[in-house]
């Protein structure tokens, strides 16, 4: 009965109500679209960056992240990798030997990460294999072969078919040395990697660095980052069983995590401002209508309606306004985001700029629970809580004072 009354009251002033509805709907739609876009972009950014080399998660010896010394090892990496692959959400496990050492070609020499990799699993996990633009990637029959980043190759002045000397510290403290033939040169799109990584076959690296049947890290891949994130509890259990650490993407790329957190914080300020502004507009309109109707409320009180019931009715007016606005906004914003999610947003000439951040030229918003619900819930909450002000005001009214005041 009160709800009906409230709804009828709203439409006594259709113009004001429609305007209020429009402002709520607009902000809700904006919030949904912007949040979906942000979440979509960040998800793509994360996945694209992680897929270059890190993987969606990594198994590492305890303490390796702080001090990546070659003598911190995972024993029997084959068995650990098989255990990891048995976990739902993990589809690739690539064991690696990470030697930091010197690469030399004649008089030129540079420090680099010398990664011993298993070509088959590495090609699934990391995009490096796909970005080889000269020569080819490593294969299972390779022995003294190597692929290296474009900038590293340029610095060393080595081309496909050339030879590179590798010198680094082996696990037992002796000198690990090898001569490799360059079979491919890659352009991962991340300059730091193109300047600093050489990949060679795992078995050969294990031999050169005294790492037989050992690895430094196992990089993990899956259908999506979310799938691997969901597998983390089981991976942690696996890590505990083997005495090794599990690093999720945030620990692998703390800079990216911080950058994303910072962006969210900045946008949060904007979102809060939007919500606050629209809440104030709506409350203002309602307060006006309350003042206008004080005499009417007085009459209602005089004929026996309790002040609290009237206040509740006013509050319900606000609530139904907010709900209707949210629904409308939800339809507009959700529809737009959904459509864009299917179609993608093309940035035309900005595509190259995006590529620098590891983003494809077409971006896809992600409409999920968080991006769809945050905006409407925030607005509803703000309005419902703000509604306490008119509620208290009306609840304190007495019949005589109310009728006299107008």
């Amino acid at each position, binding site marked *: 009965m009160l709800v009906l009354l409230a709804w009828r009251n709203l439409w006594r002033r259709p113009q004001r109500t429609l305007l209020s509805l429009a402002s709520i709907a607009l902000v809700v739609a904006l919030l949904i679209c912007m949040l979906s876009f942000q979440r979509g972009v960040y998800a793509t950014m994360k996945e694209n960056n992680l897929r270059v080399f890190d993987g969606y998660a990594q198994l590492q010896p305890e303490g390796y992240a702080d001090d990546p010394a070659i003598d911190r090892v995972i024993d029997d990496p084959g068995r650990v990798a098989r255990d990891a692959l048995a976990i739902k959400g993990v589809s690739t496990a690539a064991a690696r030997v990470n030697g930091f050492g010197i690469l030399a070609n004649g008089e030129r020499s540079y420090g680099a990460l010398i990664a011993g990799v298993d070509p088959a699993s590495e090609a699934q996990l990391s995009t490096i294999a796909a970005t080889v633009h000269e020569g080819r990637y490593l294969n299972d029959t390779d022995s003294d072969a190597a692929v290296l980043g474009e900038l590293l190759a340029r610095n060393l002045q080595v081309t496909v078919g050339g030879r590179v000397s590798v010198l680094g510290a082996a696990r037992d*403290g002796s*000198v690990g040395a090898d001569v490799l033939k360059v079979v491919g040169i890659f352009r991962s799109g991340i300059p730091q990697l193109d300047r600093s990584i050489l990949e060679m076959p795992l078995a050969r690296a294990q031999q050169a660095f005294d790492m037989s049947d050992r690895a430094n890290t196992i990089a993990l891949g899956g259908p999506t980052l979310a799938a691997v994130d969901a597998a983390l509890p089981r991976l942690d259990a696996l890590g505990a069983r083997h005495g090794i650490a599990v690093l999720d993407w945030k620990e692998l790329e703390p800079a990216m995590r911080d950058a994303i957190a910072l962006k969210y914080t900045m946008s949060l300020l904007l979102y809060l401002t939007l919500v606050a502004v629209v809440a104030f507009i709506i409350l203002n309109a309602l307060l006006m209508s309350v003042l206008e109707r004080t005499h009417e409320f007085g009459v209602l009180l005089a004929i026996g309606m309790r002040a609290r019931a009237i206040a509740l009715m006013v509050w319900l007016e606000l609530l139904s306004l907010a709900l209707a606005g949210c629904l409308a906004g939800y339809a507009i914003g959700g529809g737009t985001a959904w459509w864009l999610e299917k179609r993608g947003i093309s940035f035309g000439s900005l595509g190259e700029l995006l590529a620098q951040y590891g983003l494809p030229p077409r971006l896809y918003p992600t409409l999920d629970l968080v991006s769809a619900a945050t905006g409407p819930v925030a607005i509803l909450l703000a309005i419902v809580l703000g509604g306490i002000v008119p509620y208290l005001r009306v609840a304190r009214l007495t019949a005589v004072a109310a009728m006299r005041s107008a």
Partner: protein
Amino acid sequence: MTRRATTGRLRAARAPPLLGSLLLACASAGEAATTGSPDPDALLRRAFEAYRARSSHSSVAMTVHRPQWERHLEMKVWTRGEDDALVRFVAPPKDAGNATLKVGENIWVFNPKLNEVIKLPVSMMSQSWMGSDFSYNDLSKSEELLEWYEHRLTATEQADGHTLWTIESSPKAGAPVVWGKVAVKIRDDEVFTEEVFFDQDLKPVRRMQTQKIGPLGGRAYPLIMTMQPVDSPGQWTRIETLQGEFDLTLPEYLFTLSNLQYPRQ
């Protein structure tokens, strides 16, 4: 705040110069009377000169200790002045033939398996040398302490019949150095007994201590020294000088790239 504290300490140390030198003179009897209140710069310089001499040729054993393993290496070392040094490993067989040449601040390494001389890239200077707790920087910038730091005498003590000075060295403004502070202890016979390296936050990072001082080539010499990172207790590198000759005339070809690859000596 720190500045004030430092100057405060300085003043405290300087306040009774007369009393200080008097005490010093009494304590170390006639021998130290000539030293008076030593100038830390000169003290350091003399210690470095005594350590490396004009030239040297020595046999050195190096023990690298890790929680999981320990390695023993033997090498022959030639040095000339502060710029030139050649280290050639002779044992164990796995490492024999590896060699390191330093000329000025440049370092080249020779590896017998590659049969190739490789110039060490600048980015690798901070890496471990032959798996030890020494870095290539320790070789190439061994005497940057003299050039880039300001020194002050912070303590004088007596031990085993010797006077022991502690010198704290802080980098000069804008100095291109790694350490935030270095504290050196020098005995009155110009032997280093301890060297502690601090990071930029002035926390000790690693400590080199002299375990045995003995006569070598007509001088007192730190025969056994151990370098240990402060936060890794199970990890150290010990350097033991087995034989040594100083101030000899070394052939010019010794410190060349061709000699590094095709040894003549």
